[in-house]
């Protein structure tokens, strides 16, 4: 026992030494580039002419099995996407297994789900990644097992995917900046609720927003920015705290409308509605309501249903040995109080009352 104890003591002191070492390693945390930003934005630069139409292929002769993994289904954005997947799969006679990780924090779960899809030998996997860097290994394994991976909406850092289908997140970020700058007449103090850390959309949109703002509207100050798991509860909590710290805030950028809904509630509670510009992305029912009421000032609509449809189309095309473009960008549109009645929501939301099969 003595010996064991001595070893334990040695271990403890070793641990202490290492922890001291760790201290040195703490400061560069923000310099460590989240790989997500690099991979997809480099690839955006390459696509000079985005493909904005992607027609439905002819119905294949056999029934393909497609496994789909999305971050979660508690956001209407992904419900719209799920509708796109399932409806298009029906059109093309494919059988679909739809899995959700339950939130952006459950990377381990999504990795297991991809592995399970590989083990059950689906013909293709469609992936909306909870984390860019975190899904590299799982995607590699799937491709090594001969299963093609179609990347939709949220990008994996793996370069092994057949195609990337998403909104042009660079454009979305710039649309936010232009609207914010014009609405604030070029001067103001704003905060950013970027979204889920390590996701391509939070990184690319947020960076494009900041870049555009700095170029076009240098008198708008960004007082703070926060990442979160991108739920309305996160938006509410972060915005309440921002309002305590900076009462002068007159603009809030939201990478997704999930945090915008929470932020809008905080703004309402503070009685600052109409005096604070809130920009959002996507168009769930609560977002529409807040836009009609003038609490949320604008939102960039993404074609979530289209993303889902194109994902299935690309999978079928690939499996039928037809060429698939490496990048497919879906369209986006700005919604404000002025144009809210004239929007075509067919590809933005699932039909009212539609719910995904419980997974």
């Amino acid at each position, binding site marked *: 026992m003595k010996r*064991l104890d001595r070893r334990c003591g040695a271990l403890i002191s070793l641990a202490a030494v290492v922890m001291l070492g*760790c201290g040195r390693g703490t400061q560069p945390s923000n310099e460590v580039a989240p790989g997500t930003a690099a991979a997809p934005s480099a690839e955006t630069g390459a696509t000079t002419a985005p493909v904005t139409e992607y027609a439905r292929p002819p119905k294949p002769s056999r029934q393909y099995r497609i496994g789909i993994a999305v971050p979660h289904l508690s956001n209407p954005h992904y419900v719209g996407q799920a509708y796109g997947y399932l409806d298009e799969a029906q059109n093309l006679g494919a059988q679909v297994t739809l899995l959700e990780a339950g939130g952006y924090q459950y*990377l381990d779960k999504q990795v297991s789900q991809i592995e*399970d899809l590989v083990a059950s030998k689906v013909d293709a996997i469609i992936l909306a990644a909870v984390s860019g*860097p975190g899904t590299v290994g799982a995607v590699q394994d799937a491709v090594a097992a001969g299963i093609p991976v179609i990347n939709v909406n949220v990008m994996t850092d793996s370069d092994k995917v057949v195609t990337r289908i998403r909104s042009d997140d660079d454009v979305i970020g710039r649309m936010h900046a232009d609207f914010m700058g014009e609405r604030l007449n070029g001067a103001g103090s704003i905060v950013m609720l970027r979204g889920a850390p390590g996701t391509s959309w939070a990184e690319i949109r947020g960076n494009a927003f900041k870049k555009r703002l700095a170029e076009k509207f240098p008198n708008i100050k960004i007082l703070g920015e926060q990442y979160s798991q991108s739920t309305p509860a996160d938006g509410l909590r972060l915005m309440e705290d921002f309002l305590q710290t900076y009462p002068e805030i007159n603009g809030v950028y939201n990478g997704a409308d999930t945090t915008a809904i929470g932020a809008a509630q905080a703004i309402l509670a503070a009685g600052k509605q109409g005096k604070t510009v809130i920009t959002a992305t996507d168009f769930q029912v609560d977002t529409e309501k807040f836009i009609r009421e003038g609490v949320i000032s604008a939102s960039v609509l993404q074609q979530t249903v289209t993303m889902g449809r194109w994902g299935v189309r690309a999978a079928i095309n690939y499996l039928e040995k037809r060429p698939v473009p490496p990048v497919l960008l879906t369209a986006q549109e700005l919604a404000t109080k002025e144009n809210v009645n004239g929007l075509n929501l067919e590809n933005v939301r699932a039909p009212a009352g539609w719910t995904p099969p419980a*997974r």
Partner: protein
Amino acid sequence: MPAVIVILAVVFGSLNPNFWSGTNMANVSRQMSILALLSLGQTFAILSGGIDLSVGSLLALVSVVCAQQMLNFGLVEGITAGILAGGLAGLINGLVIAKARVPAFIATLGMLVAARGVALTLSGGLPIAGLPREFLVLGAGYLGPFPIPTMLAVAGFVLAHVILSRTRFGRYVYAMGSNEEAAVLSGINVARHKMMVYVVSGLFAGVAGVVLTARVISGQPTLGEVQELYSIAAVVIGGSRITGGVGGIGRTLMGVLVLGILGNGLNLVQVSSYVQNIVIGIIIVGAVYVDLARERRQ
């Protein structure tokens, strides 16, 4: 419990033949390896009459420390730093429990919250990418037909079993868990050995965190949520007594197998993940009820 595992395997196998395929066996064992390593540490804590609620958050802390040190100093340094970060957090748990006499539930609950905070602070909340590709081998590689994470978990089981059944420390763990007062009176240095229990648990969480980091080939401050609860579930489903003193590594193995096979099998036969949670909840309570019922009869 072994009978339950056989029944589960037979049922899933007949519903989806892929269940028995070599790739799926490798797959399910690899998925179980993280939970297995966490549950081994948890077994020590529970057998000694305590509990370690911090192991899930430690995955995140270890992942961030491992990734950052790997970028700064290299592969081996990163792995070592990760494991030792787990051990150090365990040591702090142990000191608070054994020396400051804070109940294990509270002390490790504090660590659960704080370790996540340290992980988020060190990483700025962002994932840490750019780890060397060789590191992926630890999470996705094979030794012959066996996935490396599986082999690490197996090695962990053997080591933990030997410590618990063959060393004096192991016997003290049982003694403290059955009757702490008696352990004190019989001259066991309870404080020191309690501390060691939590260091062991932290080190197992360290290894689990490094393997998980390799699986996701990045440092992730959000990893491991609710994993501490699954590790407790694995220990009690296996049949170790939640109040300590009775149980062992073999039982934990059973618990891990039940949870792992259930999760993978239900996915393969396409049972909704919502329903899966219901099933797992019932099994946790059911397994403990059956054990208690058997004990009362005897």
